[in-house]
């Protein structure tokens, strides 16, 4: 069998086995395992546990805030790399401090900071709120969730340093950061598994999307090493796209689908489409991202090889087929999001509510960017390599116009429930959204136009680089600075909101409408509002009237 099919087969079998164990437990060992894991998550931390608070929601809040801070650094690294691509000596003065800025290295730092610092932290943070909520229980260990967020941040910091200088004192830095990251991820997975094991009701599908996303990360790592996929360029390409599909796509769609219901107040439109998204994220190859597996080679370090292998005919066939199938989960997700957010004539919340705009943007843009990515990846897999010139810009678009808006939008939607306060200013949130979106769309599109110009010049075998292409890249990088400003405004808004945001009243607390069995009617309201809160024709409306009679002492 070929690399692609073999690795995919191992991945499917392993994930099914893990799913089976999560559903059925470990038979007679379940209680022992639960006790041991709980001990490791709480008591085994020793005095470390006293460093952080363990209040309800504190873990999720900590992850989300740090994820937003990483957004600033990620956008700054990306902006700087875009600038240096047309002005390589712009930061030459830093050489006196021993630092030589390089566009490729900074772009790599930007990708790591965005994917692992921002998107992952926002998804995991939102997951710490969503899974307990859907499971009808409390998070197994808030203290551990809170503490591990700092370990994760340190791991991303180490990886970002590694992108600038991968070998310090003979130690490979990126694999070291990945190892720390892996330990933190294991703690997150154990925390969530313990939470799910205590569930009081069946977990809704968005919860499974998040859980499968988390579980797939160590599974893909193990499978890639065991199957030898990390040793050659084809296997690395596949592992990269499996991480992108199962870990990032599943995680982000899980939190986004949950948030679409929370932010709009509408029930999630279709369970079948969520199921299609879930199975599609596992069974297909996600086309988003790079056309090479360089990142996999970097994170696995000594465990990975550097053999350059061409796609075999069978690899080409299987990879193209599975990538084309990825359109099923993409369309299922986008349609479900958009219909849920609009509702069936019951859309009563403001579309300007923080998070809504980001979720809408991601849901709209995922389809055209997936189409573009599919063309570029198929072009690479088939060995034609005619579209490879726009691959980097398209990869950046999938990061800054899909993954980040969806994960950030979900985090902003959950913010009031997590902090007990609204954002400091809805206007500032809207401004930040416009800056980020405007900056990313205009900056990356202009850069892509420059890419097309360079591709045309290469095709015509013109040796002199185009000055217009250079100028376009310059404008593209300046426009992208809007993303940096937007990220700063979002962060400032969230931080200020924690201290001075309007305290949420009981009425304004939103809950997911995924399963509403009863609705407490405390004051006169319209049928439209009841339906919009997630009720359906089978929901029991319970009048809770106030009594004006004079009270008396309670008899004991």
């Amino acid at each position, binding site marked *: 069998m070929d690399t692609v099919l073999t690795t995919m087969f191992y991945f499917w079998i392993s994930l099914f086995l893990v799913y089976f164990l999560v559903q059925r437990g470990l038979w007679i060992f379940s209680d022992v395992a639960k006790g041991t894991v709980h001990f490791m998550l709480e008591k085994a931390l020793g005095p470390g546990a006293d460093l952080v608070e363990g209040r309800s929601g504190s873990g999720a809040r900590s992850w989300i805030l740090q994820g937003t801070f990483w957004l*600033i650094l990620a956008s700054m690294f990306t902006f700087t790399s875009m600038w240096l691509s047309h002005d390589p000596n712009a930061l030459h003065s830093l050489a006196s401090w021993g630092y030589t800025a390089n566009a490729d290295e900074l772009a790599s730092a930007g990708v790591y900071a965005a994917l692992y610092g921002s998107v992952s932290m926002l998804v995991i943070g939102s997951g710490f709120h969503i899974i307990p909520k859907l499971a009808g229980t409390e998070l197994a260990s808030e203290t551990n969730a809170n503490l591990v967020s700092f370990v994760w941040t340190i791991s991303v910091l180490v990886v970002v340093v590694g992108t600038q200088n991968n070998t310090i004192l003979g130690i490979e830095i990126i694999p070291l950061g990945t190892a720390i990251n892996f330990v933190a991820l294991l703690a997150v997975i154990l925390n969530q598994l313990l939470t799910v094991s205590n569930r009081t009701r069946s977990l809704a599908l968005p919860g499974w999307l998040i859980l499968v996303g988390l579980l797939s990360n160590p599974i893909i790592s193990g499978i890639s090493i065991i199957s030898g996929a990390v040793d050659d360029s084809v296997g690395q390409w596949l592992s990269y796209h499996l991480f992108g599909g199962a870990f990032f796509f599943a995680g982000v769609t899980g939190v986004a689908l949950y948030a679409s219901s929370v932010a709009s107040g509408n029930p999630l439109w279709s369970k079948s489409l969520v199921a299609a998204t879930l199975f599609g994220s596992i069974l297909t190859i996600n086309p988003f991202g790079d056309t090479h597996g360089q990142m996999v080679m970097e994170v696995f370090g000594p465990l990975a090889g550097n053999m350059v292998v061409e796609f075999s005919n069978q690899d080409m066939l299987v990879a193209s087929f599975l990538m084309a199938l990825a359109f099923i989960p993409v369309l299922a997700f986008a349609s479900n999001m958009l219909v849920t957010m609009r509702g069936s004539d019951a859309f009563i919340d403001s579309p300007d509510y923080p998070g809504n705009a980001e979720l809408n943007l991601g849901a709209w843009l995922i389809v055209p960017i997936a189409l573009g990515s599919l063309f570029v990846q198929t072009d690479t897999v088939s060995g034609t390599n005619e579209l490879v010139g726009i691959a980097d810009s398209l990869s950046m678009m999938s990061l800054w116009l899909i993954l980040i808006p969806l994960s950030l939008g979900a985090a902003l939607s959950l913010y009031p429930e997590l902090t007990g306060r609204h954002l400091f200013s809805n206007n500032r949130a809207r401004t930040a959204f416009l800056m980020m979106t405007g*900056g990313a769309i205009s900056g990356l599109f202009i850069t892509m136009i420059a890419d097309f110009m360079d591709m045309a010049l290469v095709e015509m075998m013109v040796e002199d680089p185009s000055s217009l292409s250079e*100028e376009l890249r310059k404008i593209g990088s300046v426009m992208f600075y809007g993303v940096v400003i937007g990220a700063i405004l979002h*962060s400032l808004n969230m*931080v200020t909101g924690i201290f001075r945001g309007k305290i949420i009243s009981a009425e304004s607390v939103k809950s997911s409408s995924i399963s509403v069995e009863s609705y407490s009617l405390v004051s006169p309201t319209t049928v439209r509002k009841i339906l919009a809160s997630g009720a359906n024709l089978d929901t029991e409306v319970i009048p809770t009237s106030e009594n004006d009679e004079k009270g008396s002492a309670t008899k004991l």
Partner: protein
Amino acid sequence: MSINTTDSVDVFLQGEKEPSGSWVFIVVGVVFSLSFLVLYSILYPGQDLPVISDLVPVFSGVFDSGIWFFILGTMIGIFAILGRLLLEATSE
């Protein structure tokens, strides 16, 4: 003939609340300004835009690229967040 003086009184009206769209225009204006500044080099080739080291000679050889305007802007933003955290945490 009489003139209705009540209607002709010059009254200045100003809302108490800031319209939500105003900040958007200011920020978009800033970004557009920066973009047009970059276009300067296209319109006037050979004449570089002034950078920080041109304005403050003490930084000569250090901040001699336009990127430093942007980096300093980001640093101000990051320090604003840190400052907000410290001030709010110690204000109680």
